C-alpha cells in the first residue's frame, strides 16, 4: 500500500451558526479512489472547499507530497497539485469546449492566444480520457454528461496528482456513469489520487478502494471499502445501529386500494417531445415513470403540468374535461411539480430557507393574501422536521445549505401547497440514504392520505419499491405499463430494453 500523497489533519471550518467541519483528518493515496461519504450537510463539500482554497480554513493543516500547502483560491490549489470538479457544474456555458478546458492557462505568443494550440491541447486532453467531442462546440450545447467529462478533462490537463470529484454522477444515467468510471479508473491506474463524493452506494462500492465517513462535520472513520459492509456504512453515516438501518428499508404496502382516477389523458403528446400516450393516475396511488435519461419521462411530467403545451390529445381531471395548458392552471387545480434540474430551475439562492419554502403556497393564495408569519414559521418547522432539513436557522440563505438540503427545501415547498397531484422528477437525486428513506416514507404516507403521485426515477429498484403501477418510456413513447406481480426490477429493465414487457397492458 502506498503512502498518502495528501494528508490533512484537524481541518476545521466554522460558518455562522454551524461548525461545518470539526477537526477532520483525511488522507489520499496515489493510485486509489477514496470515497468521501456522509449525509447531506455532513461537510463533504466543505472539506473539499476548505482544502482547495474556496473557503479559508479556520484550523488544521494540509500536507501535499511533503509540503504544507495553504491555497487561497482554486487556482493556487491547482498550482499546488490539487485539481477539483466542484459539486456545482463549474464551466462556462457560452464558451467552446476547447476554451473551457484551457481557460486561464491558454498558450500565448506576445499576449495573443494561440487558438490552434488550444484546440489541439483540448482534443488531446479529451482523447486521453477516451472521449470524442467536437472541441469547437459551445459547452451549453453538450449534454450534462459530456460537460462533466469536459470538466474532468480540464481538471486533469495539468500536472496535478490529486483529483477531487464532488458528486460528479448525480445527473448522469447508468451508461454515462459507466463511461465516467472508465475514465476515473484509467486516471487511477495512471497514479492519480482520486477523491470521490456520491450518495449512490452502488457507485461507491463499484469504484472506491477506501471510504472516509463524516457525520455532522466530524470524522467517523476511514475504512477499506472491501471490509465495510453496506449496512455498516449506512449506519456510520446516520449514526444509528445496524438494526435501526435495516428497519428503514422496510416499506409499508398501501393501506387501501387506489381510489378514483384523478387525472387521465388520452392521446396526449407534443411534437418532437412526447408521442401521444394514454395515462391515468388515481388517488392514493404512486405511478412510477421509468425510462432512460432522454426517454421522455421528464417531458411527460412537464406536459402534464403544462410547462410545455400538449398539441394533441385530451385531459380529464376528476372525470371532467380540463384544459390544463399552463402552470398557473395546474397550480389552481392543485398540481405540484418538482423539476429535475433544481439548481437552475427552482432555487432562489438569495432568499432564505423560509422564503423559499413558502413561495409556492403564497403564489397559490395570491400575493394580496399574505401568509401570516406565525403560519409560515409553523410550516417551516413542520417540514424541516419531516424531511430532516439541516439548516442553522429558517432565516439562513438557501444557497448556504448543502446541495442535498436545498433539494429537500424545494420538495417541502411543493408539499406545503397540499397538492392533489404531486409530480416528482428525481426527488432523491443527491439526497443521502437516510433522507431518501425519509422521503420514501413520506410519499407512502401522502399516498395513503389520498394524494395521486407521479414518481420519476432512474433507479429501477427505488421505482419498483415505491410505485403501485409503472409506465415505461422509451424513445419518447410509452412502451409498457406494469402492475401487480409484473411490477419488479427485471420487468422494468426488460421493458426499457426491449420496449415491451411480458404483459403490456395499456
Amino acid at each position, binding site marked *: 500500500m502506498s503512502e498518502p500523497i495528501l494528508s490533512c489533519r484537524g481541518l476545521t471550518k466554522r460558518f455562522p451558526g454551524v461548525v461545518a467541519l470539526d477537526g477532520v483528518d483525511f488522507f489520499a493515496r496515489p493510485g486509489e479512489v477514496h470515497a468521501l461519504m456522509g449525509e447531506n450537510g455532513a461537510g463533504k463539500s466543505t472539506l473539499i472547499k476548505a482544502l482547495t482554497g474556496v473557503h479559508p480554513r479556520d484550523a488544521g493543516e494540509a500536507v501535499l507530497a511533503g509540503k504544507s500547502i495553504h491555497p487561497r483560491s482554486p487556482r493556487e490549489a491547482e498550482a499546488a497539485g490539487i485539481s477539483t470538479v466542484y459539486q*456545482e457544474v463549474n*464551466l*462556462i456555458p457560452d464558451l467552446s469546449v476547447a476554451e473551457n478546458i484551457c481557460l486561464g492557462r491558454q498558450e500565448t505568443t506576445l*499576449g495573443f492566444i494561440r487558438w490552434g494550440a488550444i484546440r489541439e491541447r483540448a482534443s488531446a486532453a479529451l482523447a486521453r480520457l477516451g472521449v470524442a467531442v467536437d472541441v469547437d462546440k459551445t459547452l451549453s450545447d453538450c449534454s450534462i454528461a459530456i460537460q462533466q467529462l469536459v470538466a474532468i478533462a480540464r481538471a486533469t490537463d495539468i500536472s496535478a496528482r490529486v483529483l477531487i470529484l464532488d458528486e460528479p454522477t448525480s445527473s448522469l444515467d447508468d451508461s454515462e456513469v459507466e463511461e465516467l468510471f472508465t475514465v476515473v479508473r484509467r486516471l487511477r491506474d495512471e497514479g492519480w489520487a482520486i477523491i470521490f463524493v456520491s450518495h449512490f452506494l452502488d457507485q461507491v462500492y463499484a469504484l472506491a478502494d477506501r471510504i472516509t465517513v463524516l457525520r455532522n462535520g466530524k470524522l467517523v472513520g476511514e475504512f477499506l471499502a472491501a471490509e465495510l459492509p453496506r449496512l455498516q456504512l449506512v449506519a456510520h453515516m446516520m449514526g444509528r445501529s445496524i438494526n435501526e438501518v435495516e428497519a428503514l428499508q422496510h416499506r409499508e404496502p398501501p393501506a387501501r386500494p387506489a381510489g378514483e382516477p384523478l387525472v387521465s389523458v388520452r392521446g396526449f403528446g407534443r411534437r418532437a417531445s412526447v408521442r401521444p400516450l394514454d395515462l391515468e393516475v388515481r388517488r392514493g396511488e404512486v405511478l412510477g415513470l421509468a425510462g432512460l435519461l432522454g426517454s421522455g419521462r421528464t417531458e411527460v411530467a412537464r406536459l402534464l403540468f403544462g410547462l410545455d403545451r400538449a398539441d394533441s390529445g385530451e385531459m380529464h381531471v376528476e372525470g371532467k374535461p380540463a384544459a390544463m395548458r399552463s402552470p398557473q392552471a395546474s397550480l389552481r387545480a392543485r398540481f405540484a411539480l418538482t423539476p429535475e434540474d433544481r439548481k437552475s430551475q427552482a432555487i432562489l439562492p438569495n432568499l432564505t430557507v423560509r422564503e423559499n419554502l413558502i413561495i409556492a403556497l403564497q403564489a397559490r393564495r395570491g400575493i394580496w393574501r399574505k401568509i401570516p408569519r406565525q403560519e409560515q414559521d409553523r410550516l417551516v418547522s413542520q417540514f424541516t422536521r419531516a424531511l430532516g432539513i439541516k439548516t442553522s436557522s429558517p432565516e439562513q440563505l438557501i444557497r448556504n445549505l448543502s446541495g442535498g438540503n436545498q433539494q429537500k427545501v424545494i420538495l417541502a415547498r411543493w408539499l406545503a401547497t397540499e397538492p392533489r397531484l404531486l409530480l416528482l422528477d428525481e426527488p432523491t437525486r443527491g439526497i443521502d440514504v437516510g433522507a431518501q428513506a425519509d422521503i420514501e416514507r413520506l410519499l407512502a404516507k401522502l399516498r395513503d392520505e389520498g394524494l395521486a403521485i407521479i414518481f420519476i426515477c432512474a433507479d429501477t429498484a427505488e421505482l419498483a419499491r415505491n410505485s403501485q403501477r409503472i409506465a415505461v418510456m422509451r424513445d419518447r413513447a410509452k412502451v409498457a405499463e406494469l402492475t401487480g406481480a409484473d411490477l419488479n426490477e427485471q420487468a422494468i429493465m426488460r421493458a426499457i430494453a426491449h420496449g415491451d414487457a411480458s404483459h403490456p397492458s395499456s
Partner: protein
Amino acid sequence: MKKLRLSPQTIPMVASVAVLIVLYVGGCLAFDNFGSLRVLINLFGDNAFLGVAAIGITFVILSGGIDLSVGAVVALTSILIAGLIGHGLHPLAAIAVSLAFGAAFGALMGTLIQVFELPPFLVTLGGMFLARGLGFVVHPESLSIDHPFYGDFVSQTLSLPVTRKLSIPFTAVCLVAVVIGATMLARWSRFGRNVRAIGSSEASARLMGVPIARTKILVYTLAGALSALGGVVATFYMQSGNPASFVGLELDAIAAAVIGGTLLRGGVGFIPGTLVGVLILGVIQTLIIFQGTLNSWWTRIAVGGLLFVFILLQQLITRRKK
C-alpha cells in the same frame, strides 16, 4: 472561422449585417448620391464618438454589467479638453489628462461595484450624474477650441486623402483603429476571454481560477477610457466641448451593442457586431436626412422597432436551444 456553420451565437451578427446591407442598398436605390463615397465616409466619421463609446460599453455588457455613465463622461471629457486648452495647455497634454481621468473614473466605479458588491446599474447611474455635474463645473456652456493643433493638424494633416476633394477624417480612422484593437483584445487576449467567462457564469469563472476582481475593475476602467476617447474624438469632430451634449448617448451605445448581437445578460457578443450596430443607426439617420420631410425623431422610432426585432430574435434563438 474554419467552418461556415451558423452557430446560434452568430445568427444575430449575421442578421445585423444583413439588415445593414439591406438598408444601405435600399438607400442607394431610393436616393441618388446615397451610394457616394462621401456618404459612406461620413457614416464612419459622424458616428465615430458613438462607436468608440459603444465598444467600451460592449465590454461591460459582455462581462455581465452595464455602464450608464458613458454619455456624461463623453461630455465631461469634451469640455475638460476645451477648458484645459483654453487655459493654455497643449491639446496633446489635455487629451492625455482627459484619457487618464476617464480611466480613473471607470476604475473607481469598477472598484465600488466589485469591492462593495454594489449593482452596476446604480453605481454607473451615480457616475452619470457625477460626471454630468462635473462637466458644468468645468465650464457651464459650450466652449470652442481654437488651436492650430485642432484647426490644421487634426482636420487637415491627419486626415487621409482619397481623392482631391475627399478625405477620410481622422475621427473615422480613430473608430476603425479602436474596433480593430478591441476585436483583438476580445478574441486573442486572456483578458478578453476572462471577460466573457465572467459574463457567462461568474460563479464558475471564480472556481475556474479567473481573476474576477481584477478583470471586472479593468473592464470598467477600459470603458471609462474608451468613453474619454469618445470625448476626444467628439472634440475633433465638433472643434468644441459642451457639458450639456450627448445626453442619452449610452442608450444609443447599448442599442448598437444589442443590435450587433451582444446579449444583455453577458457572455455572448462580438466587437465588430457593435460597429455594425452603430453603422445601422447611422444609416437610418442618413436615410431620414435624405428623405427630407420626415422629422429626425423618426430615427428613434426606427431604432426602437429594430431593437424589438433583435431582442425577439435573440429570445427565439435561446429558446430554441433549450
